[in-house]
């Protein structure tokens, strides 16, 4: 058949960023921020996240914690993203967020409290403006757009740097309308927003390949007319660089960016899941070859900025930190039942007084 002639209107490229390959070797010169101290801090924080996850899973297994979503294998995303924000920026998290929350100053016992069935965990002592964990998939992205609007609205002079909002979600989240509506609005209103997708290849049992026919998730940015790129989500240097750059664009009123960080969920979806029902062992094994902590360690070892004694010292320190928080968590007594009314409205409406008193009487 005769092909009609068409006029080209627009072209788009999607590209990917990496500094460390899976053996921990550099694929290009590292960015300036990647000093030995910074890398060691990255390593420490990722190691802490992994320890917290591990401990949380054990607490769940022994009936001391509810369902828990581990970030095993995705620590470079959590730490890479969470640490890229300025203190005054606002993080609008997903629920699989241990590394990022630690970076934001949320206490381990707060994280445990949330998954331990206690709303008080979300009343962070630090990061008081960060949004709470969000369980309904992708909804937080719209909240983040609202936050970004507010930050821009409250900012007097758009020629000066702004506070920004950063939000995160999974690969599964990119199938949901909220995600598209959020990025479309962010593009439309040029909001200071960064959206990071933790593409860990799975939405519970549904593989990334079954979520969308897209080659990359980054290309979904094109539907909103915003910047989109992919990073190696197991390379914390790449993650941090990309997010920092995107934040800087947002800060300077250059609008939003979508970042797809490609990683792998090395754990069950949550402690309520059994990934062996749907995940091939080989795929999992191969994914372990690419995991972020060993990779960074390999680089640090080869660069001579890390060694066995430091590793031992670090593990000892982290174990102590963890232990302390776990104890705080385990020793927190249950809230009073009437707490369920205390924060429902700013002031208890008269119409609820009777129920409040009934509940009190029940105690």
């Amino acid at each position, binding site marked *: 058949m005769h092909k009609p002639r068409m006029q080209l209107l627009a072209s788009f490229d999607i590209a990917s960023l990496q500094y460390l390959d899976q053996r921990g070797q550099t694929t290009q010169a590292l960015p300036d921020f990647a000093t030995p101290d910074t890398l060691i801090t990255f390593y420490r924080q990722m190691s802490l996240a992994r320890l917290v996850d591990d401990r949380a899973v054990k607490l769940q297994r022994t009936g001391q914690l509810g369902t828990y979503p581990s970030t095993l294998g995705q620590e470079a995303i959590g730490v890479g993203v969470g640490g890229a924000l300025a203190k005054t920026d606002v993080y609008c998290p997903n629920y699989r967020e241990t590394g990022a929350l630690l970076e934001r100053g949320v206490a381990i016992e707060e994280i445990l409290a949330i998954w331990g069935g206690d709303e008080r965990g979300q009343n962070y002592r630090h990061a008081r403006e960060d949004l709470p964990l969000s369980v309904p998939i992708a*909804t937080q992205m719209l909240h983040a757009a*609202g936050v970004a609007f507010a930050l821009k609205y409250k900012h007097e002079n758009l020629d000066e740097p702004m506070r920004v909002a950063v939000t995160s979600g999974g690969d599964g989240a990119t199938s949901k309308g909220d995600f598209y509506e959020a990025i479309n609005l962010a593009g439309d209103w040029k909001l200071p927003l960064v959206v990071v997708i933790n593409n860990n290849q799975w939405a519970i049992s549904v593989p990334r390949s079954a979520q969308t026919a897209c080659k990359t998730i980054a290309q979904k940015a094109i539907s909103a007319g915003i910047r989109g790129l992919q990073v190696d989500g197991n390379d914390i240097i790449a993650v941090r660089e990309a997010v920092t750059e995107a934040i800087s664009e947002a800060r300077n009123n250059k609008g939003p960016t979508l970042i797809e960080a490609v990683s792998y969920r090395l754990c069950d979806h949550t402690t309520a899941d059994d990934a062996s029902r749907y995940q091939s062992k080989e795929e999992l094994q191969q994914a372990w070859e690419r995991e972020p902590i060993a990779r960074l360690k390999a680089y640090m070892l080869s660069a001579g900025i890390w060694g066995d004694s430091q590793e031992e010292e670090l593990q000892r320190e982290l174990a102590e930190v963890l232990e302390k928080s776990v104890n705080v968590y385990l020793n927190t007594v249950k809230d009073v039942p009437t707490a369920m009314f205390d924060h*429902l*409205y*700013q002031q208890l409406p008269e*119409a609820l007084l009777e129920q409040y008193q009934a509940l009190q009487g029940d105690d």
Partner: protein
Amino acid sequence: MAQITLVESITQALAYELNADQRVVVFGEDVGINGGVFRATDGLQQQFGVDRVRDTPLAETMIAGIAVGMAAQGLRPVAEFQFMGFIYPAIDHVLSHAARYRNRTRGRLSCPIVYRAPYGGGIHAPEHHSESMEALFAHIPGLRLVIPSSPARAYGLLLAAIRNPDPVIFLEPKRIYRAVRQEVPDDGDALPLDRAFILREGNDVTLISWGASLKETLAAAEQLSTEGISAEVIDPATLKPLDIHTVIDSLEKTHRCVVVHEAPRFGGLGAEIVAQINEYAFDLLQAPVNRVTGYDTVIPYYRLEDDYLPGVSRIVSAVREVLEYSTGEVK
């Protein structure tokens, strides 16, 4: 002072609060230069600028969701849904987030949002433009639900809703947007958010209604009065939390009650009112509370909508029924 309509009183309240409080931001589809499809935001963008009165892309989930983030950052978002029939994609964010943010974070963050929407039938509009689904929101913990029925109440209640520290669903009975004019002083005085209004005093029967149905309810009361029947008419207006005490007080006098709403009967707010009367005033009742409501059908396209909406005659018959009722012997 000029007399204004209900929809103009909405505009007046929005303008007052936009002026008084920099944190107030109005947004929704066509609220800007067009002033909203009912002109509720007429002139506001011109007066307050596009940052404060803003058209959104066409996405109701988004409208509901961004309000949560804006509120968490201390703004006072006032979001408009063009018609209640298009509010449903917003329910997830209203229910799962706006209504829960304060509780979820134990007071760290909160959602002082007003979600506005014109609602109800009777304007010969296309499908989905005539919905009365207030009961869906009334069941959601953490929300307030407000429905004004006069220009003055619309003004005072909307101000109260915007100033309220928690999320409010504010439904505007569009059938009476322009039904009456009143003097509404632009004095910034808010009304309380948990007090029912007694619109007409009476001794023989208590009629409870809200929104546009009050028009027929008051007309029915008027008609009954010509027959020597004295009906008290109560507009709860702040439907959640509900001021049941005003209703009970009235029942102390009347002992008989009819609830009127245009929403479908099954699971409508009438049911909750009957249930609370049953709980708080069982011994006062001399007849079962009667409900005059929309049928448990989809509100029809407009050629049949008058057959669907509770009219004066249905209300009057229902009142007659409760007045003629005499308690059986079974008890």
